[in-house]
C-alpha cells in the first residue's frame, strides 16, 4: 500500500471522453431501485463519478478492494435527461489518515458538453480501510 499525504489535496482527474446519457441507462438504473423509469433517479450520476475514481485512484496506490463509501452528497441544478452528453472532472478536496484508514473526499462537476451548463456536482468520501480494521 502506497503512503499518501495531504499533498493529494487539489489533485484533479477528468473523464477522457464525454458520456451520453441514454434512456436505457436511466430506465435500467431506475428498475434496479424499484423506481419509475420515466424519471431520472437523484443518485443516477454515481455510476459516472465512481467509475472515474475507480480508474484514477488505483493509479496512485489506492487498493480498490478495500474501499467503502463514507458519505455522499448531490447538488442538481437540473435533472439529468436522456440525450445529455456529459463531461466531468474531479478534484480531491480533502485527505485524512485516521488510525490507518484513509479518507479521500472527491468533488465531481458534471457539465453539459453541448452548452457548458453546469448540471450537477457530487461529493463522495471514500474510505480505504487499513489492514487492521
Amino acid at each position, binding site marked *: 500500500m502506497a503512503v499518501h499525504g495531504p499533498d493529494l489535496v487539489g489533485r484533479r482527474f477528468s473523464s477522457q471522453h464525454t458520456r451520453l446519457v441514454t434512456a436505457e441507462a436511466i430506465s*435500467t438504473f431506475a428498475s*434496479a*431501485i424499484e*423506481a419509475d423509469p420515466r424519471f431520472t433517479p*437523484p443518485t443516477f450520476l*454515481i455510476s459516472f463519478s465512481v467509475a472515474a475514481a475507480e480508474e484514477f485512484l488505483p493509479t496512485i496506490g489506492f487498493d480498490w*478492494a478495500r474501499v467503502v463509501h463514507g458519505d*455522499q452528497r448531490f447538488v442538481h441544478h437540473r435533472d439529468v435527461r436522456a440525450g445529455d452528453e456529459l463531461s466531468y472532472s474531479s478534484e480531491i478536496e480533502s485527505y485524512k489518515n485516521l488510525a490507518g484508514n484513509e479518507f479521500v473526499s472527491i468533488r465531481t462537476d458534471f457539465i453539459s458538453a453541448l452548452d457548458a451548463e453546469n448540471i450537477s456536482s457530487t*461529493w463522495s468520501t471514500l474510505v480505504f*480501510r487499513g489492514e487492521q480494521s
Partner: protein
Amino acid sequence: MSWSVGDEFTEKTFTVNRSDLKQYADASGDQNPIHQDEAFAQSVGLPNVIAHGMYTMALAGEAIRNWFGSEKSLTEFSTRFAKPVVVPAGEDVLLTFTGKISAIEGDQVIIDVTATCNGVKVLTQTKARVRL
C-alpha cells in the same frame, strides 16, 4: 398538496436480497465483489456480503419520491453511511425509511430521513431538498 414543518411520512420498506445487489451492480457499474462474493467480502475483513451504500441511498431517494411524487426533483441529497447493510445468502433484508419535514424555503422542502435495517441506523444525516 401543502406541507408543513414537522410533517411526518408513512414509513416505506424495501426488501433487499443478493439478486437485488447483482441487479444494482449491473445497473450502476459498481461490480466491487464485496457486494456479491461472500468469500471475498470476508477475505477483506467484512462480516459478509454488504449492500452498496449507494444502493441504500438510492432507495432512500425512492422513498422520498414515493412521498412527494416520482416526478419531483431532489435538488440536493446527502447522507453518511454509518453502518453496513449485511445481506446474507438466501435472506430478504428489510430496509425501512421514515421522513420528516425540517424546513420549507419557498418552493423547496427540506426533509430529514432515517434508514434502519434490523433496528440499526445504517444511514445518518440524511437530508434532501425537494422542489415542489
